[in-house]
């Protein structure tokens, strides 16, 4: 059986392999070189590739991200790390007004092969400015790809695809996934953008999730199986592009849908998916699409409250029951 490695090790392999393959790939971020990254994703890369290709930066997020964009426009393939997705609020102009629009504004005369790596989600009492899930913000910006892997296998294959992508990719990891282990082939492989993955097949209800809500949904599915409800867990893996075909296929089959999102409910991606389903599978639904999402609040420091503001296994189970019988 295949070798098992950690999510963060899978990301490290992806970076290493792509840097070996393509000299135009280089890394920028705070503490990624000497320190190997706050979550150890870039460990050992400074040693192999040297300080010109693995660059520690000052605390100047907007400008080193913009530097990544400028380098990308002129032929490099930068992978820029922002320590916490909360800090991406400092780079929004460069990301939204520059990276996302550059190919368009220049009439297609140049592209921006930039990968913006960051990580989000609640950890363990990291509080309001280190725990957000902000993918919905990037999802709304035309010109950005949005990738959120849940397993080591997907993490490696998607990061390699992201680095080879000619457009800017926002690649969001989750702080609670880094130590998770899973099978990852040693061979060079890619995971294609826009292909959802059925992490668990089932006929009774479709649970749509991404990032850290996937393992949590799988746990819920196991509990539900005990009650005789067979849930299909669909991992979107990339939000932009989104595999709407896979979503509709599963929904037409199960006719019951729960969308699980760690981010706050209001204005989240789950709503967009629900709108899509009701528009394109209206006649298949015999119950409203259920959404299990974070409640509309910043993340509290207190650990018990922190747990209660984002979906837990029980919440997913409840939502499935609700979607099942009305």
């Amino acid at each position, binding site marked *: 059986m295949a070798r098992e490695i950690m999510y963060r090790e899978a990301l490290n392999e992806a970076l290493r392999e792509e840097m070996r393959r393509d000299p135009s790939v280089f890394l920028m971020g705070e503490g990624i070189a000497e*320190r190997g990254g706050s979550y150890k994703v870039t460990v050992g890369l400074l040693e192999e590739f040297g300080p010109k290709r693995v660059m520690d930066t*000052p605390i100047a997020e907007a400008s080193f991200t913009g530097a990544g964009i400028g380098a990308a426009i002129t032929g490099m393939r930068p992978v820029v790390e922002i320590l916490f997705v909360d800090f991406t609020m400092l780079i929004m102009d460069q990301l939204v007004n520059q990276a996302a629009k550059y190919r368009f504004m220049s009439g297609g005369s140049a592209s921006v092969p930039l990968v913006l790596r960051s990580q989000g989600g609640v950890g363990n009492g990291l509080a309001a400015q280190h725990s957000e899930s902000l993918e919905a913000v990037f999802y709304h910006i035309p010109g950005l790809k949005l990738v959120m892997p849940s397993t080591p296998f997907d993490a490696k294959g998607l990061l390699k695809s992201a680095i080879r992508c000619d457009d800017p990719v926002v690649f969001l990891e989750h702080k609670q996934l880094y130590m998770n282990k899973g099978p990852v082939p040693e061979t060079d492989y890619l995971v294609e953008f826009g292909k959802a993955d059925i992490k668990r097949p089932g006929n009774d209800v479709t649970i749509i999730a991404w990032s850290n809500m996937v393992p949590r949904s799988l746990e819920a599915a196991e509990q539900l199986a005990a009650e005789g409800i067979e849930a299909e867990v669909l991992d979107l893996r990339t939000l932009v592009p989104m595999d709407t075909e896979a979503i509709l296929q599963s929904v037409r089959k199960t006719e019951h849908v729960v969308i699980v999102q760690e981010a706050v409910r209001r204005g989240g991606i789950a709503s967009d998916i629900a709108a899509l389903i009701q528009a394109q599978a209206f006649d298949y639904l015999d119950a409203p699409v259920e959404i299990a999402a974070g409640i509309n609040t910043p993340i509290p420091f207190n650990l018990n409250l922190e747990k209660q503001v984002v979906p837990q296994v029980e919440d997913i189970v409840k939502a499935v029951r609700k979607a099942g019988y009305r």
Partner: protein
Amino acid sequence: MNLELSARRSSAHFLFSRLAVNYLKQFFNGEKMYTKEFLTDIYRTLYTIRVFEGRCVKLYRQGMIRGYFHPYLGEEAIAVGACAAIREDDYITSTHRGHGHCIAKGADIKLMVAELFGKKTGYCKGLGGSMHIADLSRGNLGANAIVGANLPLGVGAALGSSLKEDGKVTVVFTSDGASNNGVFAESLNLAAIWNLPLILVLENNQYAVSTPITESAREPDLYKRGEALGIDSRQIDGNDVLLVYESVKESAEKCRSGKGPAVIEAVTYRHGGHHVNDPGLYMPREKLNYYLSIDPVERGRSYLVEQGGMSEKDVKKIEAEIEAAMDEAIEFAATSPELNFKEFQHIVEDY
């Protein structure tokens, strides 16, 4: 640039030596520049921070405190000297390394420990924690987990004062790493053109996590960034609480007399890693030893003994009081309730 200007600009160094010489003189010929009471308060605060951080680090290791914890150990002289030089109702904005600022501005350590424990009785009801601890009752607008983000907030507090003409000053504590962030230059420029009563105290501990300032600045004298914006700026030894006190006092008087903002770069060094879980192995041992040898708390202690003329016995008594108060604070926090979900929902219902 003409010579007068360059002379004015090097005032930082003149000031440094002047102050140094002054108190050393007065120190050696035994005349008292500072009262015993003053030196006692100073030392109390220094020692309280030292004890608070030491004990809380232990509690963190025991799992009683979670999340990020950036100890102020080794930098105590800056918060204490700066806050002693301003009034209780003046404002400060703090950083991710904010326990020292909070204590120096007069916070109740009971409510602080409670906050670090995530309890309802904490300064932020347990919703903020170490990186967001705030004490509005003493003008502490709070710690901040976004490096640099407290600068604009401080500019706003100072702007409010200049509009209200309430005579308050705002001390913005910031850091070497923050000086590379855009808001640093933006905010100082606003303070400069609006002639605000703002004192920027730059705690240059020479590292951003493990990145030495020499790798993130080509010009290592960070106070020059203030000069370039037309702000009276200086660099001082941040490990001498009285020097910090004098510098901030002088700047505060300038602010209150409408002469505008100041930048004070206080050079210091952490006594340990960036946060509790960072062993700080990248910090050269001899350099660390040097800074341990000029420990700001020790220095404050000798001021009290030698200048303040307090007996070793009385000092020990004070230290014992502070340790007892810390025991109490921990007891208070440990036995305090947490916010329940209903109470929480009430707070966020309109979000």
